[in-house]
C-alpha cells in the first residue's frame, strides 16, 4: 500500500532526525558525567569510564550554581508570566485597534526587532541607574515589559487577528469590556500560541547573558548564564564541570519546552 510505504519513509526520516539532533545532547550529558581532571578521551564515550558526578558537585560549589539557579528561577517566575501577559495584551490591543494605530505600532515593533542588543546596553544602563535599579534583578525582568521580544507581540497580534471576528462581535453585543473579552475569550482561544511563546520566552529569559553581565554586580544576584560563563573559563580538563553546569542549566528549559511542545503541536491529523 502506498500509504504504508510513505509512513515507513517518514519513520526513517524521523529516525534520521533523531540521529542528528539527539547525540550532541547525549554527548553533553555523557561529558558531564566524566571525571574532571582527566585528559580528554581520544574516542567519544557514550558511557564515560569512570562514571562520576564530581563534575556536578564541583559545578555547584565553584559556580555557585545553586544560588544562581534560584536567581534565574526568580527572574523567570516573575519575568515570563509578565512578559507573556504584556505580549498577549499588546497583541490583542493591536488586533482590535484602528488600523492606523496598529500600523504605526507594528512598524515600530519591526524597527525594534532590528536593534541589536549591544546598542541598548549603555542607554538602558543610564535609565536603570536613574531609576536606582542597577544591581537588582529588575533590569533582568524589565524586558518583560516589551514581551521580551517584539516578535512575540507580533505573533500574538497575528493569532488574535485570526480569531473569527464574529466572536469579538458576540462579546461586543454581550457588552463585554475589552479586558474581559481578552481574558474570557481571546486568550483561551490562542492557548497553543501562548504555550509556544511561553516556552520561547522562558528560554530567552533563562539564557539571557548580556543583560546580567552588564546590570548585575552582586555575586548573590548572578543568574545561571553568568555562573556558567565563569565555569567556562575553567581549564579544559575541568570541562566536565562546565558540561555539568550546562546540563543543569538546560534541564529546566527542556522541561518547559517539552511541556509546552505537547500543547502547541498537539492538534494532530
Amino acid at each position, binding site marked *: 500500500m502506498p500509504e504504508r510505504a510513505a509512513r515507513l519513509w517518514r519513520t526513517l526520516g524521523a529516525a534520521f532526525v533523531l540521529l542528528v539532533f539527539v547525540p550532541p545532547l547525549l554527548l553533553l550529558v555523557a561529558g558531564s558525567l566524566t571525571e574532571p581532571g582527566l*585528559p580528554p578521551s581520544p574516542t567519544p564515550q557514550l558511557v564515560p569510564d569512570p562514571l562520576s558526578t564530581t563534575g556536578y558537585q564541583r559545578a555547584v560549589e565553584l559556580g555557585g550554581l545553586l544560588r544562581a539557579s534560584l536567581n534565574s528561577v526568580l527572574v523567570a517566575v516573575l519575568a515570563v508570566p509578565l512578559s507573556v501577559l504584556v505580549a498577549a495584551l499588546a497583541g490583542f490591543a493591536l488586533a482590535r485597534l484602528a488600523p492606523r494605530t496598529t500600523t504605526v505600532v507594528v512598524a515600530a515593533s519591526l524597527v525594534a526587532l532590528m536593534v541589536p542588543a549591544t546598542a541598548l*546596553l*549603555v542607554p538602558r*544602563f*543610564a535609565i536603570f*541607574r536613574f531609576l536606582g535599579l*542597577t544591581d537588582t534583578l529588575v533590569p533582568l525582568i524589565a524586558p518583560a515589559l516589551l514581551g521580551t521580544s517584539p516578535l512575540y507581540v507580533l505573533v500574538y497580534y497575528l493569532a488574535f487577528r485570526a480569531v473569527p471576528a464574529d466572536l469579538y462581535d458576540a462579546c461586543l453585543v454581550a457588552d463585554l469590556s475589552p479586558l474581559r473579552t481578552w481574558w474570557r475569550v481571546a486568550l483561551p482561544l490562542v492557548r497553543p500560541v501562548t504555550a509556544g511563546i511561553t516556552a520561547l520566552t522562558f528560554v530567552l529569559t533563562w539564557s539571557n547573558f548580556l543583560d546580567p553581565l552588564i546590570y548585575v554586580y552582586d555575586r548573590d544576584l*548572578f543568574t545561571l548564564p553568568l555562573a556558567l560563563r565563569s565555569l567556562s573559563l575553567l581549564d*579544559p580538563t575541568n570541562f566536565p564541570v562546565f558540561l555539568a553546569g550546562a546540563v543543569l542549566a538546560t534541564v529546566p528549559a527542556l522541561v518547559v519546552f517539552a511541556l509546552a511542545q505537547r500543547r502547541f503541536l498537539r492538534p494532530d491529523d
Partner: protein
Amino acid sequence: GSGASGPDPVKLLVFGAPEELGAYRTLIEAYQDARPGERVQLIEASDRKDLLARLATSVAGGAPPDVFLMNYRFYGQFAAKGVVEPLDQRIAGSTLDPADYHPVAMDAFKWEGAQLCLPQNVSSLAVYYNRTLFTRYGVPEPKAGWTWNDLVGTATAMTRDARGLVIKGTEAEGAARLPAVHGLGVEPSIIRLAPLVWSNGGEIVDDPVKPTRLALDSPAAREALKNLIDLRQAYGVVPSDAEVEAEDDESRFLNGRLAMLMTSRRATTNFRTITGFEWDVAPMPVYRQPVGVLHSDAYCMTTGSKNKDAAWRFMEYAMSADGQRIIAATGRTVPSHIEVSRSPAFLDPDQPPRNSQVFLDAIPTVRALPTVSTWPEIEDLSYGILENAIHRGDRLDDVIRELDVKSRPMFARGEHG
C-alpha cells in the same frame, strides 16, 4: 541601598577564574574582620572583556565601581580619559610608603607623572618545566643564563612520540605520528615576544614614551620574531594550531604532555593541583642580556566613585603586607610589596615551584610595555597576525609590514601618559 545601616559598601571590580575570585573573597573577609564596620562588595567578571564592558558601561551610566583591578597594559585607556583617580595626595597622607614596593611596578602605573593605581603584583615571564619528563628522557633541565639556542635544543630533545622517541613536530602534519609530548608551549603574542626582542637589543615600539608604530623591522626584532616563528615552522616543537585548539598549553602541561611552558606566575595556582609529576620554573632564555617583561595588575580608584575614602582604606589594606600575603597565598601573584615578596608567603619552599626566586631575580631586568590608550586593540590585532605567522608560516616581511601598517592608525588614535 535602602535598609542598609552603614554607608554603601566599597565596590571592587575584578575578573578571574573561579579559584582566583575565591582569593579576593578571602581578602575582603580578612579586611572586614580586621576593620569592623567596613564593607566591600566584590563584583566578579569572568574575563577581561567582561570586566571592560562592565566598567565602561557603568562609568558611562554614571555608577562606576569604586575600585577596579586592571593590568597596566589596559589601564591606559582609562587613565587617558580621566576615569582613574590620582592617588599621590592620598599616598602622601597615609601609612603606605611607595618605597616598600618594587619601583618597576609602581612606575608602570604613573600617568603624566601622577601615581594613578597601586600595583598588586609584579610578575614576569618564566619557563615552567616538567622535571619528571626531563628526568625520564635524560635531558638537562634549563638553568639560569641559558640562551635561545639552548631553549630550541632542549625543546627539540623533549618533543617525543608515544614511544618516547624524539620526533619532529613538523613532519607530523597530517602524517602517521603525532608528538605525544611537545617541547615547548608559547603564545604568539606581543607580550611573549617583547622580552625576546628586548633581550636581543631590539624594540617593540619606536618610542616607549610616545609610541607611534611597532618597530619590529629592526634586525634584532626581526631575528627574535623569526626565531619564535621557527619554533613551529622549522622545528615543530610547539603544538600546531589545531592541537592548541584541541587542548590549550596550560592543560597540556597539566596533563604532562608539554615539557616546557613559557608563561607568567599566574599559572602557578593551577599547576599546584598537579600530583602526577614534579615541575619547576626556570628563567627566560637570553639573547644578549637578560630582560623580562612586566606583568602587573593594580588597584585603581575611579574618579566617579562616591565612596573614595572608604575605597582608599580598602586599597591601603589590600596593598599592606597583610593584604598582599593573602593574595600571595594563592600562588598566582608575585607580590609587589618587596618585603612580602621575599617572605615565605611567596617563597614557601613546601609549595612548588621550588625555584620561585626566579621571579624575584627577574624583577631588576623587567621592562614595561608602553601605555597607550589603544593598546588593547593593538594587542588583539597583533595576536591574530602573529598566530597566523606561527601556524600558517606567513612570510616574515609580510608579517612585519602588516603589523606595522595595520597598527599605525591605532597608535595615531592613541593617547599616551
